[in-house]
């Protein structure tokens, strides 16, 4: 057993004092001399031709400095599918899409100017349902799909509303169904929802006359913003500096590029003045990106002994008007499509569908919360059909080390154990115990759902870290993975402290991310930060030690190999005279006669995802997963049969996180993820009118959990089977707590009242309706 000094300890978050005193700065808190404010004219139609735009009155208004239309911004942006311009050109594709942007001295003037702009539209037939959008003759959302640039692993179907069709074929699915004793098919549905970060999308942009572009933005990934902005605008990257201060929540919705090009282009038109855009809450709902809607159909073949023989899966994703991120969610859900089980024969089609809804993007879990609702409900429905206990059924098919995943990957021995997670959760909720079902007219039930997820990213993404030794022996860690609440920088400081055996107080992690100075990191997404930045940071700390030892060896006249770095010193153990403080080596080592040696110590470290491959375009076979984090969720609920109210008495969660770096921060991720899941389980949903206008675009009408809505009890069971190529064995767990909440609760509701739910949210009304229909059937 390794004895840890800093890893595994409850080190307080590095950013905590700034945040509890209100001094932490977010993009919206920044102001610059001459700064202008942006307001948007947005489409009232879901699908319409733009016939004419008249901005003349707006331009005359005193204080208006720039009015920008789509024609003046003919650039397509995107990370996986460049299908979006920053303002609508020729036509609008969803209600709330920006058509004209105004930058003015004050928000008030900008808003007045927007009211003076006249746009003539010609309404076009619109499509809102993914299945209708797939039919022949459906209105086309993108006529020029064939012209859009996209990543090589994306397969659009020009002439149709399909932005990506991911195919997975393993074994022989027809044979699998023939071998089955029972075949069961079900359909599942989820509406679009929103990330609802407390900080709305906020950006400040400046395009100076010398060609330099400066951006301050609430983005998860500064280097992705720089890259996509540069490629989109055709500007060399060294001319772009992206700064990211603290972020008020991201949850995937601030990954990639969002509104940065708009403020930059407005600034250019306004002669280089900085331009700020703060999305209103309403715009956050219908103008910026949302989580895609989901339709799933699953057919499962199973033997009476509980072995699954085949799965045929169709996932349709309601990407809305633009599918940049949606195409990769489709792919990630496609290669993980079965959930954490070994299934010998699989046919899966996961399809990104354009509609005239607001456009989709990443949201914590990246498609996995959606499809796990389908797969984990289906597991219970199948188990019931063959009369098997749902826990036993899951264990029988569990993807444990050595078994083969949907893409043909043989799970490594240190891959983590879903079976241990399932067992731990079952025990925590008293699975199988006879307890009173009825308590004061209410009915109790228990449900379980398992899960898995790997970071969804291209096969070759990388991260780097710079560790600077300061003149007093303290160190400064520079990384470009952002701090949006998840706490990774604190965990990285613990990793540095452990590696250098140095007090945590002597370690600083830079708080601001800036592409001009910071080391490269692909993105802060996908629960990859701790693993990838962690490995890069370890590498940087080792590199720093090497540099220190090389100089110290010369100064002390000892072989480098004998030296150890700890307690802010470099020394030979057991030889008190062979020791130097790190501080004495920071800028250069000094011989007794005054000669200098070495130089400023700057540790560099990097990590590139190892062993991943492209997936076969026809079969989806290959190696997509850097690490799988496995888990299970258990719910104990109490249903009021009269009202449909469901109270969550207990949520028990287990994740194989390999190694806990900071228990309090991990718990925060678990509780927070669960409560977001409870929001979508019970209350969150986009409700549209027939014309595609969002009816609940504020936080009065669109509910998220408040303090009273949380479970009565949380139980978290960390499982720690270390992954050998991870820093101290630790896997990511940022997204996972948010996955499989909905199916665990739905399975518990069935256990309590015998009502099967196939749609979320499982609102009080929908549970009541289910009970009513069940009563009528009797």
């Amino acid at each position: 057993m390794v004895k840890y000094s800093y890893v595994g300890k409850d080190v307080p978050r590095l950013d905590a004092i700034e945040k509890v005193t209100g001094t932490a700065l977010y993009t919206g808190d920044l102001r610059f001399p001459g700064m202008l404010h942006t307001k948007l004219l947005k489409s009232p139609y879901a699908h319409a031709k733009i016939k004419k735009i008249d901005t003349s009155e707006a331009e005359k208004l005193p204080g208006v400095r720039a009015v920008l239309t789509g024609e003046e911004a003919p650039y397509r942006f995107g990370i996986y599918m460049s299908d979006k311009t920053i303002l609508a050109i020729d036509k609008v594709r969803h209600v709330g899409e920006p058509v004209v942007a105004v930058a003015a001295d004050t928000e008030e003037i900008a808003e007045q100017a927007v009211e003076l702009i006249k746009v003539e539209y010609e309404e076009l037939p619109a499509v809102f349902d993914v299945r209708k959008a797939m039919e022949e003759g459906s209105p086309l959302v993108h006529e020029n799909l064939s012209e859009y640039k996209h990543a090589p692993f994306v397969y659009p179907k020009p002439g149709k509303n399909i932005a990506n069709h991911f195919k997975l074929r393993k074994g022989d699915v027809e044979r699998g169904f023939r071998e089955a004793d029972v075949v069961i098919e079900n359909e599942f549905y989820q509406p679009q929802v929103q990330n609802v970060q407390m900080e709305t999308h906020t950006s400040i942009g400046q395009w100076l006359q010398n060609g330099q572009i400066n951006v301050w933005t609430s983005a998860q990934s500064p280097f992705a913003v720089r890259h996509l902005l540069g490629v989109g605008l055709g500007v060399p990257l060294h001319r772009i500096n992206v700064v990211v201060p603290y972020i008020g929540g991201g949850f995937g919705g601030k990954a990639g590029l969002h509104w940065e090009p708009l403020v930059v282009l407005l600034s250019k038109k306004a002669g280089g003045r900085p331009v700020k855009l703060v999305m209103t809450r309403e715009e956050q709902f219908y103008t910026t990106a949302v989580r895609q809607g989901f339709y799933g159909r699953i057919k499962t073949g199973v033997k009476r002994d509980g072995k699954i023989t085949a799965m045929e899966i169709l996932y349709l994703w309601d990407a809305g008007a633009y599918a940049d991120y949606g195409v990769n969610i489709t792919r990630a859900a496609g290669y993980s499509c079965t959930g954490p089980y070994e299934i010998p024969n699989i046919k899966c089609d996961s399809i990104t569908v354009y509609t005239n809804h607001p456009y989709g993007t990443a949201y914590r879990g990246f498609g996995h919360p959606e499809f796990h609702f389908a797969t984990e409900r289906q597991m219970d429905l199948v188990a019931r059909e063959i009369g098997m206990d749902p826990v036993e059924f899951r264990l029988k098919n569990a993807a444990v080390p050595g078994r083969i995943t949907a893409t043909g990957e043989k799970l490594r021995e240190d891959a983590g154990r879903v079976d241990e997670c399932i067992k731990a959760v079952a025990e925590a909720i008293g699975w199988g115990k006879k307890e009173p079902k009825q308590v004061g007219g209410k009915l109790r039930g228990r449900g379980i759902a398992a899960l898995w997820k790997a970071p969804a990213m291209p096969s070759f993404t990388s991260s780097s870290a710079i560790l600077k030794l300061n003149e007093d022996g303290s160190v400064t860690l520079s990384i470009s993975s952002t701090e949006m609440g998840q706490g990774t920088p604190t965990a990285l400081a613990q990793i540095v402290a452990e590696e250098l055996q140095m007090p945590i107080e002597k370690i600083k992690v830079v708080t601001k991310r800036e592409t001009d100075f910071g080391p490269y990191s692909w993105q802060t997404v996908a629960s990859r930060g701790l693993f990838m930045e962690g490995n890069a940071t370890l590498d940087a700390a080792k590199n720093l030690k090497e540099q220190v030892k090389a100089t110290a060896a010369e100064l002390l006249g000892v072989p480098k190999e004998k030296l150890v770095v700890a307690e802010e010193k470099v020394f030979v153990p057991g030889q008190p005279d062979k020791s130097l403080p790190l501080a004495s080596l920071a800028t250069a080592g000094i011989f007794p006669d005054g000669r200098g040696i070495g130089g400023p110590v700057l540790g560099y470290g990097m990590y590139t995802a190892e062993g991943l491959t492209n997936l076969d375009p026809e079969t989806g076979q290959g190696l997509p997963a850097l690490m799988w984090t496995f888990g299970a969720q258990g719910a104990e609920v109490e249903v009021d049969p009269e009202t449909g109210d469901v109270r969550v008495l207990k949520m028990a969660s287990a994740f194989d996180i390999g190694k806990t770096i900071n228990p309090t921060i991990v718990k925060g991720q678990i509780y927070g993820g669960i409560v977001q899941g409870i929001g979508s389980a019970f209350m969150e949903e986009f409700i549209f009118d027939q014309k595609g206008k969002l009816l609940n675009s504020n936080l009065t009408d669109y509910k998220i959990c408040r303090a009273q809505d949380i479970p009565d009890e949380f139980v978290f069971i960390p499982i720690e089977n270390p992954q050998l190529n991870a820093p101290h064995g630790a896997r990511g767990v940022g997204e996972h707590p948010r996955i499989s909440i909905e199916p665990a609760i739905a399975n518990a509701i069935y256990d309590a009242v015998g009502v099967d739910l196939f749609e979320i949210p499982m609102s009080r009304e929908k549970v009541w309706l289910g009970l009513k229909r069940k009563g009528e059937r009797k």
Partner: protein
Amino acid sequence: MSRHKISLRVNGQRYELEVEANRTLLQTIREDLEMTGTKCACERGDCGLCTVMVDGVPTKSCLVLAVEADGKEITTIEGLMKGEELNPVQRAFIEHGAVQCGFCTPAFIVAATALLKRNPKPSEEEVKEAIGGILCRCTGYRQIIDAILDASKSGK
């Protein structure tokens, strides 16, 4: 539009300002006084991130006009430290991991500080009620509630 001279105290300091009628107290705090710890996230009283104390009473400052604050004593997150010392709620938030992205943190700390002044030993239900008007998307509230209960135990 009418303009109004107001005089108010914020975190113990006196300010004399002239504000337009439609300026909210939140805008005045953030933009005129440049105290940005108080956040804006919905502008319509749903999220509570703009909570400040007005004469000691927690108030959503996006729904208060600046002109109404004339003669009032305002306390924001910037005014809660006692000299160099964090207040007990701030300390408990750090200890319990009640802080994640931090965007809602000032509002919860202001509301909790006001609660403990009025009700030094609240029950869990009373804590939930007192913070029920403030939204957090990161923490799931559990660690926030625990922090407030713990701060109440540690007393002043």
